[in-house]
């Protein structure tokens, strides 16, 4: 219980007045103290300055007298008029100083000192100095000395002692003055300390007053407020006549206290109401949590159901469908473990079951009666049993297990699989059996779909395998040009075998890029494809084919055929057939015909031309002979050509006959070289035999023809001349004949095809050296027919070496 007494009108005004008076008094007294201190300083300074002025004047007089003494003595010593004048000039200065000192005269001491100075000045400047100066100027030095000795010097010394004495008296006065100042200053400082202490005491009194009148009641308020805050009772009492702020505050505080108490009552009532509401809300919350739990449970079931439906709808993989069925149906049904097993192939998927359990289930499935019951009832059923030891976990008491069996039928009503689910201590709700049955139907439908897909996939794969065995590129496109199917060969043609699976469904724009990248002058071909894709013609004609060349130089013929369902076009089949060989054969044949034509026409033109001239013109005999000789040679050339054609035709048809006997190859080669020398003057033909045997079994004419052909070629393809050498030696039981030249050589790409019929090396960039393209083919045929073989090595631009290898013969007969 706190009690506060208060009887003033306004704390603020009162304390403003008190502090005003206090600060005013403080400022006034401090001002007075400072002023008196200032006055004291001023007095001391003025007194000190006066004494210092006196001291200065006395010193000036002393210096003037001393200067006069010195100058007079100097004059007596040196006779300098300047020194005399200087000495005399000191008197007015002394008089001025005396006049100033007279004005400062204060006491008897000053007056007595001035009289002494005046008397001495009178004596020195008026009596002694004029007499001595007169004596000195008369030259009576002795009289001057005598005057000095008689008492002048003593008087001067006595006077100087007086001055010193007066000076010391002034100094003593200055010191006394300073000591006086110090004493007064210490009094003033003491007074200031007393003043400060007095004011501190007053301030303390004011503070105590403020504490007793403000702080103490405020502390009472705070304590009371604290009491109230802790819920205890408290009364704030102040004097009834106290009308100041604290009086007002106490009244307001009491009112506030009443308000708080009233509010507290209200709040308590409200609180009781809220507690009641809270209980109600808590009950509702529990209900909501239960509902939420159910919703979450349903949500999870729905999620699993959606997952199941999704998988069943989208998956075409049997195992995936089975796994999805078990995994998603376990949470929907509320089972702890589950299995789906196919009756025919024992394929299965399980959840929460050990491999041993799975094996046991599969082994007993057909014999447990479950399958028979499902086949008969055609609907799910549940069973109750005692839980097995391994199912109990940590439970030691009896535990019931509940099993649910669900059949899965195909659309043809055939039972294909069984689903089994199990849980402990909670029976399966019979009301949900229809729902489980519906889910099982969905699984059955999905299995139908998987079977259909697998069947169609197998058919597609078979179809694809068949297509892939076809040695032509097959491409089926729809009416928009999108690829429906291609075979492996097609992908190989367009250099994308790894993209076989990606090609199906490839848009026109995408696969056309492939074509453009791999076909020469693809524009025309693409236009052909466009027109065929757009064509509505049901029956193809021969015009619906196109020949193109790819960038590897291979030639393809494309056939196409529209694919119709009744009158509706479904797409177009393009067959890309590699006709490179046929094309090449045609080209070679065409070139051969052209070559034969050229080779035949040239000598024929000569023969006809010259005979025409001989028949229609009168020619001189020598020209006639020249023409006839030419006609004869050209006729021979024609004969050789025709013989070549006939030879190759005979060899191809197997009708070539040989008259074989033992031959010495060296003799044949020598003969051929001799004959060829006639035709070439710019070549150096040589034969080198390295030893060994040179006998072979053969047809002399045919072997001669082969060697002639090879040596003639060596000459013909060395247009700049050079060495043509034939080297013969035996090696490994064979006669080796090498025909070497230093001619044009053979390009590397032509070496493999050199012995092909009608093949002629393209040398138009160097020298268009003609030929039938049959010579080397005939040589090869002849050598092969003799059990030998022929090979070639060549450095392009540097020459070639053809090597014939024939079996050595020791016998004389064939």
């Amino acid at each position: 219980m706190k009690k506060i007494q208060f009887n003033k009108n306004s704390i603020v005004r009162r304390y403003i007045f008190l502090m005003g008076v206090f600060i005013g008094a403080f400022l006034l007294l401090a001002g007075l103290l400072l002023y008196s201190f200032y006055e004291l300083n001023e007095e001391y300074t003025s007194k000190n300055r006066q004494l210092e002025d006196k001291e200065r004047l006395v010193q000036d007089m002393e210096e003037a007298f001393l200067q006069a003494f010195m100058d007079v003595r100097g004059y007596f010593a040196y006779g300098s008029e300047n020194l005399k004048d200087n000495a005399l000039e000191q008197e007015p200065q002394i008089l001025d100083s005396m006049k100033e000192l007279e004005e400062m005269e204060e006491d008897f001491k000053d007056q007595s000192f001035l009289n002494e100075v005046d008397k001495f000045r009178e004596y020195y400047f008026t009596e002694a100095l004029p007499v001595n100066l007169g004596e000195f100027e008369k030259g009576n030095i002795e009289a001057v000395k005598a005057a000095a000795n008689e008492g002048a010097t003593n008087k001067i010394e006595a006077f100087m002692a007086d001055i010193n004495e007066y000076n010391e008296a002034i100094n003593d006065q200055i010191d006394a003055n300073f000591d006086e100042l110090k004493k007064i200053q210490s009094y003033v400082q003491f007074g200031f300390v007393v003043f400060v202490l007095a004011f501190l005491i007053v301030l303390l009194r004011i503070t105590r007053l403020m504490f007793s009148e403000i702080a103490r009641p405020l502390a009472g308020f705070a304590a009371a407020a604290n009491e109230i805050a802790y819920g205890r009772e408290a009364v704030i009492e102040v004097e009834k006549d106290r009308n100041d702020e604290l009086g007002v505050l106490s009244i307001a505080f009491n009112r506030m206290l009443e308000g708080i108490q009233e509010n507290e009552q209200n709040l308590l009532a409200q609180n009781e109401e809220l507690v009641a509401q809270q209980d109600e809300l808590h009950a509702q919350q529990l209900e909501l949590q239960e509902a939420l739990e159910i919703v979450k449970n349903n949500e999870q079931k729905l999620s699993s159901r959606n997952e199941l439906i999704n998988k069943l709808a989208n998956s075409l993989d049997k195992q995936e469908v089975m796994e999805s069925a078990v995994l998603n149906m376990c949470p929907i049904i509320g089972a702890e473990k589950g299995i789906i097993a196919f009756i025919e192939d024992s394929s299965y998927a399980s959840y929460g079951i050990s491999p041993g359990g799975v094996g046991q289930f599969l082994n007993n499935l057909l014999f447990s009666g479950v399958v028979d019951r499902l086949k008969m009832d055609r609907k799910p059923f549940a069973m109750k049993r005692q839980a097995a030891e391994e199912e109990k976990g940590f439970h030691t008491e009896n535990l019931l297990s509940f099993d649910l069996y669900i059949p899965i039928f195909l659309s043809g009503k055939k039972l294909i699989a069984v689903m089994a689910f199990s849980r402990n201590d909670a029976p399966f709700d019979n009301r949900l059996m229809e729902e489980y049955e519906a889910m099982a139907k969905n699984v059955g439908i999905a299995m139908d779909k998987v079977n259909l897909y697998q069947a169609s996939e197998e058919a597609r794969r078979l179809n694809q395998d068949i297509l892939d065995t076809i040695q032509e590129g097959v491409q089926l496109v729809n009416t928009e040009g999108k690829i429906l199917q291609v075979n492996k060969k097609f992908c190989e043609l367009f250099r994308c075998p790894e993209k076989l699976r990606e090609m199906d469904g490839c848009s026109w724009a995408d696969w056309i890029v492939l074509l453009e990248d791999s076909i020469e002058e693809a524009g025309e071909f693409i236009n052909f494809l466009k027109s065929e894709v757009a064509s509505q013609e049901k029956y193809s004609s021969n015009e619906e084919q196109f020949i193109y060349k790819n960038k590897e130089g291979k030639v393809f013929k494309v056939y196409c055929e529209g694919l119709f369902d009744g009158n509706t076009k479904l797409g177009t089949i393009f067959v890309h057939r590699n006709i490179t060989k046929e094309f090449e054969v045609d080209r070679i044949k065409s070139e051969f015909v052209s070559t034969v034509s050229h080779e035949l026409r040239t000598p024929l033109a000569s023969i006809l031309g010259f005979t025409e001239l001989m028949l229609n013109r009168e020619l001189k005999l020598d020209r006639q002979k020249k023409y006839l000789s030419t006609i004869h040679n050209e006729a021979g050339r024609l004969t050789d050509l025709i013989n070549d054609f006939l030879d190759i035709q005979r060899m191809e048809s197997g009708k070539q006959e040989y008259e074989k006997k033992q031959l010495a190859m060296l003799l044949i080669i020598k003969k051929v070289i001799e004959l060829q020398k006639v035709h070439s003057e710019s070549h150096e033909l040589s034969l080198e035999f390295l030893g060994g045997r040179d006998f072979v079994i053969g047809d002399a004419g045919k072997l001669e023809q082969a060697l002639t052909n090879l040596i003639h070629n060596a000459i013909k393809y060395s247009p700049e001349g050079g060495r043509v050498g034939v080297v013969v030696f035996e090696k490994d039981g064979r006669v080796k004949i090498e025909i070497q030249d230093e001619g044009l050589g053979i390009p590397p790409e032509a070496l493999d095809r050199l012995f092909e019929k009608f093949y002629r090396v393209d040398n138009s960039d160097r020298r268009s050296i003609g030929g039938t393209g049959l010579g080397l083919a005939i040589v090869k045929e002849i050598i092969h027919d003799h059990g030998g073989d022929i090979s070639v090595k060549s450095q392009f631009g540097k020459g070639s070496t053809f090597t014939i290898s024939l079996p050595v013969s020791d016998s004389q007969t064939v």
Partner: protein
Amino acid sequence: MKRILLAEDEEILRMLITDTLEDEDFQVVEAGDGQEALDLLKDGKYDLIVLDYMMPVYSGLEVIVKIRQEGINKDVPIMMLSAKSQLSEQEQVIAAGADYFMAKPFSPLELLGKVRDILNEKNTIQ
């Protein structure tokens, strides 16, 4: 005297054509291949050019193309001789800029008549 350039790789045919034309007071300059023909055409003006189709270095067709592009004989009539008498080859030759085509084997007197016609035509035009 009219100058004729004859480019033919077959020496015997060159002799046949040269003898046929020179007996009739034409001056014939001979070339053994396409390169030689082009070199000769740079050096002098000709009234007629007779080319073989198949020649070393440059074929008759290539020579025609080069002649028609530039040079002092740019507008001279060209006669092409060829053992390749297929229509496609003839068309190719005419398209390249040849004026006449004669297939081998040919009649030298027919060729002479053709040469006369060409040169008379040329004179008439001039």
